[in-house]
């Protein structure tokens, strides 16, 4: 019987991708925000209002995560904001490797602000670094106060 000291984080691959993204965003001077909340709290609505207020002064972009629909990205594209939908098909969080792949596929160069709207879930997204500057958590009154 042989022993191997592995000493590797389970989420090591995500962390490596997140570090790479953070470096890239630093170089392009892009502010990156990771929006987290329960489903239906109003992330997309908040994003629409924010984008509306900023789009004349800043170059904005959005990556939308959802388990099944394209609706979030459509709403932002209707406002003239470049947006790509990441349909996770069951995965309950966005992963840095997915973000990296989407940025390579889409036209997201030279953004001032990149909004990443995470999958509606308050548990898993907290553990996955996406290379963001800030995580923004949205909580609604109807979810209770404890």
């Amino acid at each position: 019987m042989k022993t191997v000291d592995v000493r590797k984080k389970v989420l090591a691959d995500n962390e490596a991708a997140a570090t790479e993204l953070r470096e890239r965003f630093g170089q392009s001077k892009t502010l990156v925000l990771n929006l987290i909340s329960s489903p239906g709290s109003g992330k997309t609505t908040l994003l629409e209002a924010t984008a509306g207020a900023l789009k004349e002064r800043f170059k904005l972009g959005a990556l939308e995560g959802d388990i099944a629909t394209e609706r979030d990205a459509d709403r932002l594209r209707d406002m003239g904001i470049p947006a790509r939908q990441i349909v996770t098909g069951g995965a309950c969080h966005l992963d840095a490797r997915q973000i990296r792949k989407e940025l390579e596929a889409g036209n997201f160069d030279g953004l001032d602000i990149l909004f990443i709207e995470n999958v509606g879930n308050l548990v898993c997204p907290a553990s996955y670094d996406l290379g963001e500057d800030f995580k923004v958590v949205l909580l609604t009154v109807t979810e209770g106060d404890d």
Partner: protein
Amino acid sequence: MHEMSLAISIYETCRNAVRDAGEGRLESVKVAVGELSAVEPELLEFAWEAITKDTEDEGSRLEIEWRPARQYCTHCGHEKPRPSDSWLMFCPDCTQPLRVDGGYELDVLQLRYLAYDEAGGAEEA
């Protein structure tokens, strides 16, 4: 949390490590799971069994080392113990804020495997 995808990640890490070491069959894998990692050890064990079933590594054990989160008073620096499954919002002695150390671990620590050349006539499943 999504113990199945975490178990898959652990399994891939182990398979790669065994391949690099010269191939064999997993016997046990030791992982550290932190109190604040949102991982249920029992569910992780079930996921491990499901993933390794019908593979050469079927029957291998996932040994989970629980890592607690410790809360320390920011004023006096001492650890403030608490009952398990509870959380302190502030220091019970001086009501100052607390800082957290540990509890976020999610690491593959070590594995044990039976090398195929060691096993002599052992065949791959």
